């Protein structure tokens, strides 16, 4: 039995004739320690899928289990990094991470927890900014705070929902490399959701294309056999990289009405749009 098992999950919004199905018959297995990327179109229901695996949303039908136990509520065992950071604006970098650490490791001494927080703040290179609030941080820094907060909980599964989606292209490229380092350092099981094929290839062991919505379905997974550590610049000259890239893009095109995967900001559920972090 796989670590994470998603079986026949369907999810729609609205009721009756107005109902629109977002995801249909989703099956997904993730083994412990694996890094899986789901690459798909904007508005295909990627965030909905992550929310369901996190336990924030319940599927209309089908089951989700982790380690054989059904997922029904959110839990610190499944850390989530949302596309829009979800930082509390009144907490500093340190306090944000400490909130999670104090909650998840209440049995540890104050000193141990403090060291734990410092370690994860350092892991995302934010020690110099540890006493700053989100409004004083750049987008990339905020994203790293969210990542540190999720990693510090030492979750068994880390869900990354378009973790770099809200960043400009240059910051995004820089952070991809950093994310690859942090992911392999943490050794966690990771489910990455992205609309960027290159990002998936850089980070994942396996890529699963997601078709276009409504009623989006997952495709067959494609193993990424590239050697690690992967370097973004070197990869561009790797024939295997080009082959995989071509295969995934072709797969996505065959699933969608559009000519190429869209790299624009995906349409998120309504509540995400209202929750942009205050500048």
């Amino acid at each position: 039995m796989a670590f994470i098992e998603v079986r026949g999950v369907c999810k729609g919004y609205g009721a009756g004739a107005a109902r629109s199905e977002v995801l249909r018959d989703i099956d997904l297995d993730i083994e412990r320690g694996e890094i899986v990327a789901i690459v798909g179109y904007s508005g295909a229901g990627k965030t909905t899928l992550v929310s369901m695996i996190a336990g924030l949303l319940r599927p209309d039908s089908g089951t989700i289990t982790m380690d054989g136990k059904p997922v029904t509520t959110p839990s610190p065992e499944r850390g989530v990094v949302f596309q829009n950071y979800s930082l509390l604006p009144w907490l500093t970098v340190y306090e944000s991470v400490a909130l999670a650490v104090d909650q998840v490791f209440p049995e540890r001494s104050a000193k141990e927890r403090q060291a734990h927080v410092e370690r994860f703040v350092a892991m995302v290179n934010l020690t110099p900014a540890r006493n700053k609030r989100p409004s004083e941080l750049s987008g990339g820094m905020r994203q790293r705070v969210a990542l540190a907060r999720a990693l510090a909980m030492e979750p068994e599964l880390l869900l990354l929902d378009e973790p770099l989606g809200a960043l400009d292209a240059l910051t995004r490229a820089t952070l991809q490399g950093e994310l690859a380092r942090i992911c392999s350092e943490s050794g966690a099981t990771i489910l990455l959701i992205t609309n960027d094929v290159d990002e998936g290839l850089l980070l994942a062991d396996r890529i699963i294309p997601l078709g276009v919505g409504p009623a989006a379905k997952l495709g067959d997974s494609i193993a990424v056999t590239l050697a690690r550590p992967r370097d973004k610049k070197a990869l561009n000259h790797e024939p295997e990289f080009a082959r995989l890239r071509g295969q995934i893009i072709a797969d996505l095109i065959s699933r969608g009405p559009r000519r190429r995967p869209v790299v624009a900001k995906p349409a998120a559920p309504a509540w995400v749009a209202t929750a942009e972090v205050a500048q």
Partner: protein
Amino acid sequence: MNAKSFMQRMADAVLLPMVGVGIVILLWAITSATWAEALPSPLKTWEASKLYVLEPFAKRGELDQGILRFTWYSLTRVAKGYALALVMAVPLGLFLGMSKLFTKMFDPMVQVLRPVSPLAWLPLGLVLFQKPDPAATFTIAMCSMWPTVMNTALGVRSIPQDYINVARVLKLSRMKRLVKVTLPAALPYMFTGFRLSLGIAWLVIVAGEMLTGSPGVGGFLWQEYNSLIYEHLILCIITIGVVGFLLDRLMSMAETRLRVA
């Protein structure tokens, strides 16, 4: 910064408001000199009020005291009523914001009680407490709590789903969620409520003191009306207005600081 812009700013902040005050005093003088003979002229008002303004803390008798001393009595009374209002309003607002069931049960009640005038609450307060002072406190609390109730509830309802998701993923306890997420997120809204509530509390004080005859700006106003010393009515009106304005400024300064932080 050049001199011209400094002059400009001085004109905006000081000169133009002074011109406005001057025009109003002129109209007042003309009015009292022509068709409203009972209205004291600005000069007469000043002559009669001088003692109260220049010796603001003097106490010559129970109802013959300096204007700031009266103001101080009124402010302490307001502070008591306002404190009671906040103590009742914040929990009520939090419950209204957090629970749909609670809202369905109590929101109609809130909507019915909200528009009740202070003049209607005061006799009930007198019946309940038998003494004028607690009755005034009660009246101020009952009238001024509603903006805080409504804004606190709105603040809690407007918390972004993201913040709630953070609390859910971390499995924060109810208490921790309240302290770490709900209250900080709702605080800017709550402060708007606090400011509006304070404004109402200050409005109510005059009616409260008039009806109970307690010493304070409102009580003084009513007593001087009965003693036919109309100059002092104007002194009281100006005092009430200025104090209300200063309270509002103070609260909005605190509010701005809070939003920046």
